[in-house]
């Protein structure tokens, strides 16, 4: 049997984490292809709907990543994202969503190495968890 390959939808902020993923690439650091990156201008514009939709459509996990506190290109977008993730985690865990399936991290533009490590760890964690039950049970 082939190993379970999770799909992780990632919302990366243009200024920090997306730049870090570029850096990881130019530094020839590898990370697993399970991650599907969506470039956002800021984590502050990740509407909770995007996360809910990704999970309902069968994503095994969602990763939101942006600038460290104090570094936001738009001053406070990441603070808003943090509160939204707090709300989403609180809400979705009522319906059995595991901690590992929704992650928020801060990865700066120069942290290509940290980005590769984060994705590697996250993919491992989700593999251990197994496929999202939503994929098999949902009829939309």
């Amino acid at each position, binding site marked *: 049997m082939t190993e379970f390959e999770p799909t992780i939808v990632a919302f990366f902020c243009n200024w920090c984490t997306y730049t870090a993923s570029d850096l990881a690439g130019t530094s020839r650091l590898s990370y697993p292809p399970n991650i599907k990156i969506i470039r956002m201008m800021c984590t502050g514009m990740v509407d909770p709907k995007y996360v809910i939709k990704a999970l309902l459509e069968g994503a095994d996990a969602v990763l939101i990543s942006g600038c460290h506190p104090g570094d936001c290109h738009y001053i406070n977008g990441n603070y808003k994202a943090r509160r939204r993730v707090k709300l989403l*985690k609180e809400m979705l865990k009522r319906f059995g969503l595991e901690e590992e399936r929704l992650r928020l991290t801060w990865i700066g533009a120069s942290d290509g190495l940290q980005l590769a490590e984060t994705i590697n760890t996250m993919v491992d964690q989700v593999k251990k968890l197994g496929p999202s039950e939503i994929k098999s049970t949902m009829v939309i």
Partner: protein
Amino acid sequence: MSTFSKLEVKDKDIVTSLQGFFKTLLESKKIDAFMVPWHLPMKEVVMPTLISDVEQLDKADPLAPSFPMNAAKIASRLTKKPAGQTIALVMRSCEIRAFIELIKLKQGSLDNTVLIGIDCLGAFDNRDYASFAKKEVSTVRFCDKILKDKSENIEGLNLAAACKVCEHPVPDNADIIIGLYGIDYQSELLLEAPTVKGEELLQALNLPKTSESASRQQAIKSLISDREAKRDKMFEETSLATSNIEKLSGYLASCVNCYNCRVACPVCYCRECVFVTDVFDHDSFQYLQWAKKKGRVKMPTDTDFFHLTRMAHISLACVGCGQCSNACPNDIPLTELFRTVSHHTQKAFEYEAGKNIEEPIPLSVFNDKEYEEVVGINKQSTE
């Protein structure tokens, strides 16, 4: 601190006494109009009505067990722009709390208003109220059933699910609170003025002063703890019934995406909901794509998506009024679901919807150091 006065009740008829009290306020010219539940002349239906003529208050009945809509929405309409006239808003506890949330969302104002809250005796859902109205039972009799017999079953009808688990029977944040619990309501009502606005109004009426009795405080305390126990049981049952997405999907299975719950919700205030915009006006090709992906797609689509999104939007502002369930054509117990989730999300932000007008809405503010537990990838599920 609150000041307390007494309102005499004649012939054990609290409804007429309340009407008399409202009339005195309207006659005093300190109030230009009342928004109050009112018996419509053409059918046995009670609707929030804006009244400027004293005579019309004869049909005002804020204690009727009817709750066709959350009047916070009307209050928002009446106060969004200054009218230069004072309106007394007679509302239930949950309506006042929803109105406070709407004010925080800049959808209304307390300027030129007097909030009058009455100890809430609960209400039936629309269907049960229609049956109740046919029985021609008076509101006074209903009050006796609740206050004297402490019964929740009135003529074979039960109060709405939201009312049975409501832990706010006494309204907060009103300028005048009319007390019914724990007093001899058949001979006098308690008028509490927690704000300067309320105090000034009551002072002008020269009513006899009194104080809040220990028996009233005790009655309220025991009622609240009784309701909290019922509420916690409801939370437990609902959590169990929706403990994973598949169960949640089953819980919402009869939803036909009519969005009545969203229309009825007092704190769902967007003029245009994203779910009726082009974003969800999918092409037929898209539906076929979805169908092909798994061999079938339930129509209408996006049902769970809608409810989860609504939850993300309003759970921090949910006051548990129960209008979502009341509006559902397919009897989905939405109140139970939304109250359960809201209880946890509000707790997570140490926030209580409608409690304090000074307290900012959690998603409208932020700090640089907070909620660090949600950041990072090291936290594991506890299973």
